[in-house]
């Protein structure tokens, strides 16, 4: 039985608003940021935000960010980035980690603190480097080293090292494999994609739209207020404005090659490994007004959910499917009440499986406990300024990218609501509502 949240959002809380955002262009792993650390990238993203809003030396209420692939030395990553930035050194910060939902969760956490009156302003975000990923020593070597460190005599130290075996010297690099299934995220999605019978053509079409939309948004200057160049990059390194359906159709499948159905997921309709960082400036309305800063959108509400992908029937990346009806119900809204849908494109198959599930009456009745299908999304409102397939997906940076872009799109339109949906490893998902001002 799912926990129900019947109560509407508490009316006497104040609003938390999005003032603006900044990210560095996302780079293909091993590309422009190959030798740059998470701390460097997060600092650069913060500095770009500081420059855009003239926040040099300002003390922000709190900065929250995180990284999915994180070195153990970076236990205080966000605080260290703040100290290296142009912000006041008296700005507190904390790290947060919820796989690919990290960035969105930092937004929700700080927005809630603002709504409660605990802080006036906050910077939320995330960073990830697939290039500068941590590599750990093997479990065997780690135990030997710890024991040797504890040893009091040279003889005891020697005894500890004597237990070392050649296989212990093999380093262990992080992968995208799920801890409990051993399957990679792509292989998990391939199962879901096949289950929902999402065609290769539909996935390629979604990838193409992502590239076209992102390129068009750059062309009209949409990202001038959202992106600051870094290390020679001024646009996302994975963006392919000239790609075509024909080109995408030539790519060989990379996931789901051992399934019964033909494999459909390629490097073109899956997000590449990427490096990058994104941050969002949040504040109370008073904070924004007192500094004459823009108010782009309000953070209305959010909901997390998780699925049992290990033993249950649900796909690894299908948790947003469950979070969404709860969020809509609590706010008395349907898909028709939204002007923008930002569904994170981990894989084109994820987006299309998610949409298919919401449109499926049987699924919605039996699995979501609804009276009918949740509904269809007007595809013309989906990821209108591009998403992860084109921009790339530095795991923890994606939430900040999406929230800032959506807020800017709402401000540009001047009215309406936007819906965010982000899937995450561990069978998790987070969805959120933003509203124009």
């Amino acid at each position, binding site marked *: 039985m799912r926990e129900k949240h019947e109560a509407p959002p508490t009316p006497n809380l104040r609003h938390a608003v999005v003032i603006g955002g900044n990210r560095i262009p996302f780079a293909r792993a091993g590309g422009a940021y190959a030798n740059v650390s998470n701390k460097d990238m997060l600092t650069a993203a913060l*500095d*770009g935000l*500081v*420059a*855009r809003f*003239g926040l*040099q030396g300002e003390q922000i209420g709190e900065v929250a960010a995180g990284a999915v692939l994180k070195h153990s030395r970076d236990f205080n990553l966000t605080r260290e980035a703040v100290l290296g930035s142009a912000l006041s050194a008296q700005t507190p910060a904390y790290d947060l980690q919820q796989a690919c939902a990290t960035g969105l969760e930092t937004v929700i956490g700080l927005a809630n603190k603002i709504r409660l009156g605990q802080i006036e302003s906050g910077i939320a975000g995330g960073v990830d480097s697939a290039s500068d990923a941590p590599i750990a020593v093997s479990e065997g070597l780690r135990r030997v080293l710890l024991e040797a460190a504890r040893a009091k005599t040279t003889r005891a130290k020697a005894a500890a090292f004597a237990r070392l075996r050649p296989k212990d010297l093999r380093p262990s690099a992080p992968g995208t494999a799920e801890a409990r299934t051993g399957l990679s995220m792509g292989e998990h999605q391939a199962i879901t994609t096949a289950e929902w019978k999402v065609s290769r053509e539909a996935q390629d079409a979604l990838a193409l739209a992502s590239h076209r939309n992102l390129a068009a948004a750059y062309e009209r200057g949409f990202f001038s*207020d959202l992106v600051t*160049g870094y290390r020679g990059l001024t646009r996302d390194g994975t963006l392919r404005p000239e790609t075509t359906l024909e080109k995408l159709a030539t790519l060989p499948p990379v996931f789901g090659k051992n399934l019964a159905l033909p494999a459909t997921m390629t490097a073109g309709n899956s997000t590449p490994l990427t490096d990058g960082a994104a941050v969002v400036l949040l504040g109370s309305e008073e904070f924004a007004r007192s500094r004459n800063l*823009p108010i782009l959108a309000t953070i209305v509400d959010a909901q997390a959910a998780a699925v049992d992908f290990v033993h249950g029937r649900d796909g690894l990346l299908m948790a947003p499917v469950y979070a969404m009806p709860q969020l809509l119900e609590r706010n008395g809204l349907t898909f028709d009440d939204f002007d923008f849908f930002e569904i994170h494109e981990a894989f084109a198959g994820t987006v299309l499986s998610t949409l298919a599930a919401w449109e499926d009456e049987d699924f919605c009745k039996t699995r979501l406990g609804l009276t009918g299908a949740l509904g269809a999304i007007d595809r013309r409102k989906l990821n209108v300024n591009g998403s992860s397939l084109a921009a790339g997906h530095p795991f923890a940076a994606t939430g900040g990218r999406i929230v800032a872009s959506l807020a800017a799109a709402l401000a540009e339109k001047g009215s309406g609501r936007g819906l965010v949906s982000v899937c995450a490893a561990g069978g998790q998902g987070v969805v959120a509502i933003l509203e124009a001002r």
Partner: protein
Amino acid sequence: MSADYYLSLVNTPFANRIAKQIGLPRPAELRRYQAGGPLVPGPILVMGEGSGADLLAAALLRWGQDVRRHPATGQSHGAVVVALDTIETPADLAEPLLELGAALRGLAPGGRVVTISRSPAGVSGAGVSGIAQASARHAVFGAVRSLARELRGGATANGIVLHGDVPADAPGALRTLEFFLSGKSAYVDGQFVDVQAPGALGASLECIWTPAEHSLAGKVAVVTGAARGIGAATVNVLRREGATVIAVDVPAASGLLAEVANRKGATALQLDITAEDAGARITSLAAKRFGALDIFVHNAGITRDKLFVNMTADRWRSVMAVNLEAQLAINQVLVESETFAQDGRIICVASTSGIAGNKGQGNYAASKAGVIGMVESTARQLAGSGRTINAVAPGFIETEMTANIPLLTREVARRLSSLQQGGLPGDVAETIGFLAAGNDAEINGQVVRVCGQHLVGA
């Protein structure tokens, strides 16, 4: 930016002696502005008869300067100010200028000669006496320009030109005097700044203008092309002078732009100034964020060099679009805008290439000459409104742009000015800061060259 290694080398004692013996140029380290430092490196000798000399001496005394009215043998001077505002005939020039010549031996390194004279355009009455007066006034230009070429040790000579009956201690004149005397004008040499009657909306002349730090306190300024070179240096100077600064550059330069903005506490705005809504977006940001816009520095510019015979349409058009047409469009927005202050200041970056022309820079020189035409024409439109428009015309400035010039050409270009070296971005920025300051509207339509009195285009 390429370093001028020769300048460093020749200022070591041994190399200096060699250079002197074999007749190589010996450029001096220029005296540049340092906050809190002295205005000039020694007492100021004020020469000349008549009211102008008295007024200037009184003003300089009020500024706390060590003022001398007569040269004394063996006395070194930090500057010589020569009032020529009362000359009527060519014959009147002989005495003060010969006296000035005699005083030059005592001019300190980094010293200044500043003349103050009246404009030949403002000659009263026609006839033989009027023509003689205009000739005498014009003769001053030749004298000062030659003097500037003769001075050594980083010393410069410049002139203030009063229009009509503008008194020698008008705010505009005194501001210009302070600029010429200070290290802010280190690379301005052999130049003249006209000071006009302020018009109905200009400041009253009740109190004598005095120099102050933070000359732009409370002002909101925009600098285009702010990510590097002269633009970045201008952000620094305007911030030092207390202005709030919006630093503008294209998205492709946004990383550098953010660094410039964060270093000095400015707001970064990514924008292509050739976009149709550029002027509106800038004024809108200034209005919303800061409630005002007082100073607009048109610095953004590009080069796409080609000989005319090889010139392509896109090279021609892109240079014209960025360097001239964008400024025209934005100025139109500013002139019509209520956000742009009633005493708003527009400063355009022209180029000595726009004055003298430059081989391989037909498009660039045309655009920069166009900027000068725009400044002169807009100045007439703004006259009496309280707003002003002026230009700086940089000569050889050590920037990324000039670092791309082939080594030998670059080395020759550097030494062909009276100061025998390239200028620094900060030298241009200081001149921009001077033109941005002051609540008088007495300096309008001027093109101030920052070229060390280069042989070409000065």
